[in-house]
């Protein structure tokens, strides 16, 4: 049976029973060493301002880990920081010297990597779901979105937020590409903010999706200006939405992360856990609760590739600064409730070489 699995995945089971893949690394990607013991909630590579590649991962085990990834794909654990509750989001400062982390302990911390010290920089009334660093010409701040239905902006030197914006519902996901921020909340609210001078709401968009929003990522036009975003829901669907479309038909949605297409009666629909855009090609990657990741070209509206299936869902993904490496985390996302949480199952972070695969398709 060696050839049959297509990947030469050695299923030594000797029977024809098709069960979950026994191969934990079906894409034969580089495996990051010392992964977290609990699910990985967020992954971020260091920005272009520093030459090396550092990968940060936040986990439900309360830790934020940092590895250096070298040219050969080898990962070297560097250090680790701890929160008082599960970590839900991490972010890098623009100069790559600090890492921000936020989570269920309702705080956000700033970890200075050079001095290896951390301080609290934000507080909310409920877990903080998103944190993003904003760098503008006249100000810099940390934006935190929380389940307490507020969006707060923090100057790291002050203990009170410099701005608080009320959200209609709990913040579920957000993204920042200066001068635009997009925030989505429970009940499928979608808010766009402009960040020049001082953040203010620019518009609210009616959701193009019918189910709970889960992840959002802003994309830019050819000139590098943020022009729209990709929004993923729990219903295996992604919407590509332009903030001000020149033509309403520019906006569209596509289905993804579903099992067994149309010729079968029964279809399983999985959540889209994360979406990220390639920093060079502008194509996008989606990470699914079904344990696969896919690459897409939104301009030619085609799928570039779908991965093999991992042993657990893919909970987070990110590209490194030059778009050579696609990192994705395989861990349980709770999509089947707590009964299916298996603490014995190992969590993984893989590094996939993606530059060629993510090149856009020529328009036919």
């Amino acid at each position, binding site marked *: 049976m060696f050839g049959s699995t297509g990947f030469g995945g050695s299923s030594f089971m000797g029977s024809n029973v098709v069960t979950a893949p026994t191969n934990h690394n079906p894409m034969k990607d580089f495996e990051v060493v010392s992964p977290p013991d609990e699910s990985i909630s967020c992954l971020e590579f260091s920005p272009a301002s520093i030459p090396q590649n550092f990968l940060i991962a936040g986990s439900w085990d309360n830790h934020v880990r940092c590895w250096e990834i070298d040219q050969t794909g080898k990962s070297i654990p560097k250090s680790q920081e701890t929160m008082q509750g599960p970590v839900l989001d991490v972010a890098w400062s623009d100069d790559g010297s600090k890492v921000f982390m936020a989570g269920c302990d309702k705080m956000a911390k700033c970890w200075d990597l050079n001095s290896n010290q951390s301080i609290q920089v934000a507080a909310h009334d409920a877990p903080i779901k998103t944190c993003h660093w904003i760098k503008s010409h006249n100000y810099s701040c940390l934006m935190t979105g929380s389940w307490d239905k507020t969006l707060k902006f923090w100057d790291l030197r002050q203990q009170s937020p410099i701005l608080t914006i009320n959200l209609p519902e709990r913040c579920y996901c957000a993204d920042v590409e200066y001068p635009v921020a997009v925030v989505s909340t429970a009940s499928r609210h979608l808010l766009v903010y402009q960040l020049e001078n001082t953040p203010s709401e620019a518009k609210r968009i009616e959701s193009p999706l019918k189910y709970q929003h889960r992840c959002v990522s802003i994309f830019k036009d050819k000139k590098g200006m943020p022009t729209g975003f990709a929004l993923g829901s*729990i219903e295996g669907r992604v919407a590509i939405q332009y903030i001000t479309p020149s033509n309403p038909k520019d906006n569209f949605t596509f289905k993804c992360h579903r099992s067994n297409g149309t010729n079968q009666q029964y279809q399983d629909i999985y959540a889209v856990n994360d979406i990220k855009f390639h920093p060079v090609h502008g194509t996008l990657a989606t990470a699914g609760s079904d344990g696969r990741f896919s690459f897409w070209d939104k301009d030619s509206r085609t799928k570039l590739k779908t991965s093999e299936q991992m042993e657990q869902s893919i909970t987070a993904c990110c590209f490194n600064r030059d778009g050579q490496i696609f990192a994705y985390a395989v861990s349980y996302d709770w999509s089947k409730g707590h009964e299916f949480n298996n603490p014995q199952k190992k969590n993984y972070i893989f590094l996939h070489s993606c530059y060629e695969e993510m090149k856009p398709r020529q328009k036919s």
Partner: protein
Amino acid sequence: MGRKKKKPSKPWCWYCNRDFDDEKILLQHQKAKHFKCHICHKKLYTGPGLSIHCMQVHKETLDRVPNSLPNRGNIEIEIYGMEGIPESDIRDHEAQKQAGRITTAAGADSSDEEGGSSAKRVKTAQPAGQESTGPSIPSLGSMPITPMLASPFMGMGPMNPYLGHLSIPMMGSVPQMPLPGGAASSPQTPSKPLFASSSSPSSSNSASKPAFAAYSSGGAAATIVGESTVPKKSGVIATQAGSSKIMHPEEDLSLEELRARLPRYQRNSVPTSMPQMSVASPQNTTVGPVSTVSSGQMGLPMSHLPAGMMIPMPMAHMALPPHMQMGMGPMGLLRAPHMHPGMPGGFAPYGAPLGFPMMPPRFR
């Protein structure tokens, strides 16, 4: 375009109720989805045609049209584009369009090809489906609005009165946005009915001061407020629809919220207000799972750094001498000299619990 095309009414597919921009696309859709033989993939022209083909060529009887709604699967009715649709169904369809039905979503919507890799370069009508056409926008808006309104009020009620104050006017203005007939208003939405954009930051600002003061005056209040923002009675997601199932728990909470409810992730009853140097309850052994890690050093209460509290005194907890490798045994954890008086408990060097080799953290 097509002959006898009725401009006012958009072509729609009788088998699956989808709308299309023009009849040509509708026909392509029908041929690909409803009149395609599942055995040899030959595209026929009509339902009866397909049935005859299957009988003659494959000796197989077909009893329903592939990918059709339950009540529209009759293979004997001859439909070609918009022709052949029974009067009563036309009337039904018009009526439904007025009433603004929520479209059949996951189940019948199997006609989208994933990612749209079709060489035909089908125009946006296909992927956009019903979502972007005029008539269905109000339906999208009106349905979810009502539950939306209900829950924020529920959530706001017991909460911080100051925040509640601010939110009520906002909530009141929400329904203006996506109402039917206001479908046209979505382009107008930029801040007009909701926020005069210039005043919104200031109004949020002024409200945030009392809000902040209110909760920071009592740590306990802050926690209670935090818990009640997640509505106790959450809605339900329709995860099962026809022949497909969304792999998501039925409660309309995000996966992270569901997971965070577990007691093991909640041991963070730490007052979150930053100005206070309150002693964080050190018993917050948030790291239950970590303690099971094989390095077996967990005799200690792993009180994770209430470093958060210390804005004026950045915790030097991380600046541990490099020789403090893992496998140092439990003693590795207690580096008393680094502990500030009043700092509760021992603290975990970040590398320790997870066998994370501690490289000297040098980032430059």
